[in-house]
Structures are given as structure tokens and as C-alpha cells.
């Protein structure tokens, strides 16, 4: 988050990732933070390994589903107020929140969470997936991507 905010502040000229209006900016940060501090910490690799080691695979899967679904549910409710037509998290523009949503949805799919249960998240992330910059940023399009 600090990296994105820094780049946005010091490298203007492209898409502004934080909306001009303070309340919209707060809501972009709120969605981004639910992902960044409310979901991601519970499924990063070192935590998942630790949980598997301590509790076994069944409990690990329960753990992952619990935190991912809890976060997505909260985001879905917020999106009902912040989206305009199911294309972006906040109104009609790309923001910090969209940058966080796409990788989170990809991880959720990896954990076999049904994204269709969250219609707005589904609609917005499907739309974002079709944008060139998001396509270029996909893991499989990076030069050091390791094919499994």
C-alpha cells in the first residue's frame, strides 16, 4: 500500500489511483485495507505452511475459507454502495481498490471459493480482467513465472 500511494503521488500523468474526493478516497483505501490487512495476512505462504504443519490440511482449508469469505462478504456489502455499474470498485474509475481486488479474487479461486456467491465482486473482477494493464500484470505473464 505505501508503495502504491508513493507511486501515485510522485508519478502523476497516468491513471490517478486515489480519487480526488476525500470520502471516495477513504472508501478506496477501506476496500484495499480489508484485503491487505483483513484477508491477505491469513493466506500468505508462510502462514499457510505454519497452519498446515500445526493443524493439518482439513483445518488449513477451513482457516483459508473462513478468512477469505469473511473478507469478501464485507467487501461485497461495501461495493453495493460504492460501485456504479459493476465495472469498478469505486464509481466509474480504476482505483487502488481494483488493484487489490483482482489478485485477491485469483487467490480466492485457488482456494476454491465460489466467486459467484459475491455477484458484485464477480462482475467487477471479470470486467477488470479484460483491461490490458491487468492482463499484463497477471502472474502467468511475468518473465519469472514458474509453470506448475
Amino acid at each position: 500500500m505505501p508503495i502504491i500511494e508513493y507511486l501515485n503521488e510522485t508519478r502523476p500523468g497516468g491513471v490517478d489511483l486515489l480519487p480526488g474526493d476525500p470520502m471516495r478516497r477513504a472508501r478506496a483505501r477501506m476496500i484495499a485495507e480489508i484485503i491487505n490487512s483483513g484477508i491477505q495476512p491469513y493466506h500468505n505462504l508462510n502462514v499457510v505452511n505454519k497452519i498446515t504443519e500445526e493443524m493439518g490440511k482439513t483445518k488449513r482449508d477451513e482457516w483459508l475459507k473462513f478468512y477469505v469469505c469473511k473478507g469478501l462478504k464485507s467487501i461485497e456489502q461495501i461495493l453495493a454502495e460504492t460501485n456504479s455499474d459493476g465495472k469498478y470498485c469505486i464509481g466509474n474509475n480504476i482505483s487502488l481498490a481494483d488493484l487489490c481486488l483482482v489478485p485477491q479474487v485469483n487467490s480466492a479461486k485457488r482456494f476454491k471459493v465460489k466467486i459467484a456467491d459475491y455477484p458484485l465482486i464477480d462482475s467487477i473482477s471479470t470486467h477488470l480482467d479484460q483491461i490490458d494493464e491487468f492482463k499484463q500484470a497477471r502472474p502467468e505473464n511475468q518473465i519469472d513465472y514458474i509453470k506448475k
Partner: protein
Amino acid sequence: MIKEGGQQYSEEYTKINPKQEVPALEIDGHLILQSLAIIEYLDETRPGGVRLLPADPVKRAQVRMISEIINSGIQPYQNANVLKRLGDEKKTEWLQFYLSKGMRAIEAALKETSGKYCVGDEVSMADLCLIPQVYSGKHISINRFVFNL
């Protein structure tokens, strides 16, 4: 958080925040969740007091970095819900691990950024995050770390 088994689980509060977590701030006709989003909003819309985000972009990034190490790198691993899931037997080692890891990262960052406060000589959002984190660390008896800063 503790009263009545945690008032954040009440039906009334769940309507406000389905994640059943604090804080949630109702302000200017809207609801804002998440500590850092709330602090940034208050700092932007309620000027006149101490500026919690410095004007210089590099300093601002440093403030956000320290705040995030705490907010997304430590706090998620010590909240009540997580500890309950882990159970009494495992939670001490777990806490030691994540708190130590986070504290080491903060200590390293502070070597570069600190003056009288976390970042330079002015109070910032980073200080607001550091104090409750140190308190939690002490509370769960992490005393291996001697703070020089």
C-alpha cells in the same frame, strides 16, 4: 472488546460491520472501516491539529510503511479471533513468532527514519500505530526486545 463476550459480535454492531471488527466510524453521512483509512480520512478532512501524514512524499511513504508493518504485518496475527482458533496450547509460540518478526522489521525501519519520533521529529500516524502495538507486545509478555529508539 471483552464486555459481554465482545460487543462487536452483537446483532446491532454486525449490521454496521458484518466483519464484527472494530473500528468503524460513521462520519459525514458514511461509514468508514479500517484503522488506517479512518486515520487518513480524519487527517485530510479535519485539519488544524497535528498533521499525521507529513507533507514530503518520501516521509509520508515511510510513515505508511511503518504503520502497515503493524497494521497488516503484526495485528492480524494477534487479534482475538485468530488466537481463539489456534487454542491456548499453540498461541504463545505463534505470537512470539509474528510479534518478533514484525518488531524486527520495525526496528530496522526506524534506524533509517526516526528522529524524536518514528519518522523525523514530528508525531505521525506511525507513532499512533506503534504505541498500541508495543502495549500489546508487553501485554502478551514479549520482553526480548529492548527498544533503543
